[in-house]
């Protein structure tokens, strides 16, 4: 089973929920898909056993064969190629690695080389109810503008026999969509504020478009207003859990400590959340 923890608005508590759920769910995998700034490792403190580069293909021009016809530049959706007289410029930071230029070149003058855009780290973290859990995350290199290829590689670590938790990036653009695609369920973590609601509605739109079942978790539920609750009632969206603000938990969080280790009631709360998600997926 694959579930995504997403939000729309940033800073609502995706990683808090994803890591705590991973710590108590049986046979869980925690996979951080927020590759632009992964932070789940700060709370799970995994032992990393494997590190792999993530690469993407970029075009390489053979000047012996190239006739500078310009078909590659015309075919490129992303304007990553420019043909200037007898010179082809490749802007690798614009390239999406789609291979259209290699395919279209009538002289077969384009081959593909690889460019390292980030890396994966894989390991184990200590769990609360079981011995350990599987940990994996992707890290995008500084300056790399394209995170979906790294997210795709993180998702390849999913083990179908496990309860795989994907910690999604915020927002509703390509990286978030790439994370949600193919998931069995999506839990949206929101805060009861106008900002939280605005971005939640956008995120719900993505889940609907992808036809993924979804539910809501309201974090810091005793703050803000009641508009998120009203929205969920109106749209018949299940609220799986509400977590009120707790200063002790915020303090533990600031030191990188998980809530389920500190609070018995939250440990039970997250176990119930796991059961509710499994029940929702079974519907």
């Amino acid at each position, binding site marked *: 089973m694959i579930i995504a923890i997403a939000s729309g608005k940033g800073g609502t508590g995706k990683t808090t929920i994803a890591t705590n759920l991973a710590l108590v769910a049986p046979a869980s995998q925690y996979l951080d898909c927020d590759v632009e700034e992964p932070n789940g490792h700060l709370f799970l403190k995994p032992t990393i056993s494997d590190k792999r580069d993530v690469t993407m293909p970029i075009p390489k021009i053979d000047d012996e064969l190239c006739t500078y016809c*310009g078909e590659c*530049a015309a075919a*490129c*959706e*992303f*304007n*990553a*190629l*420019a*043909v*200037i*007289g007898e*010179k082809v*410029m490749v*802007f690798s930071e*614009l390239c999406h690695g789609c291979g259209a230029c290699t395919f279209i070149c009538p002289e077969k003058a384009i081959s593909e080389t690889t460019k390292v855009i980030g890396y994966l780290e894989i390991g184990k973290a200590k769990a609360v109810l079981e011995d350990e859990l599987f940990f994996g995350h992707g890290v995008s290199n500084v300056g790399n503008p394209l995170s979906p290829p790294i997210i795709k590689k993180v998702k390849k670590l999913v083990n179908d026999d496990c309860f795989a938790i994907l910690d999604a990036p915020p927002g509703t653009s390509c990286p978030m969509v790439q994370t949600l695609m193919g998931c069995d369920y999506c839990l949206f973590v929101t805060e009861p504020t106008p900002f939280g609601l605005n971005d939640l509605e956008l995120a719900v739109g993505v889940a609907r478009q992808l036809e993924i079942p979804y539910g809501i978790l309201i974090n810091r539920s005793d703050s803000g207003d009641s508009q998120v609750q009203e929205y969920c009632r109106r749209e018949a969206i299940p609220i799986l859990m509400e977590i009120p603000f707790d200063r002790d938990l915020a303090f533990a969080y600031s030191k990188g400590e998980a809530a389920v280790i500190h609070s018995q009631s939250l440990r039970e709360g997250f176990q119930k959340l796991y059961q509710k998600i499994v029940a929702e997926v079974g519907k």
Partner: protein
Amino acid sequence: MKIAISVTAAGEAATLEMRFGRCPYFAVYDSETKEYEWFENAGIKAASGAGTGAAQALLDRGIEVVVSGQYGPKASQVLGAANIKMLLGPSELPVAEVIAKWQANELKEYAIQKF
């Protein structure tokens, strides 16, 4: 000689648009025939690489001089490699006045910046 100007719209009432890659139109003036031609910049709708795309479109039309308000790092690399002269003009200046300033040698040349 053909000179291209990034402009806000098609037609002689158009004024200089400050953005190169994301300008709505280019005005092309032929100094021999003294005639204008206008073409829509595909870059305005491009998801990425608007500057390189616009620069390529100018190269394909045989332009030798460009006037705009600012040039991005990639667009200026392409134009620079093609030895196209990049000039800077003031915002909201009507096309005919841009041409007059160019002919009077009053436009400053853009210095390629290293990023």
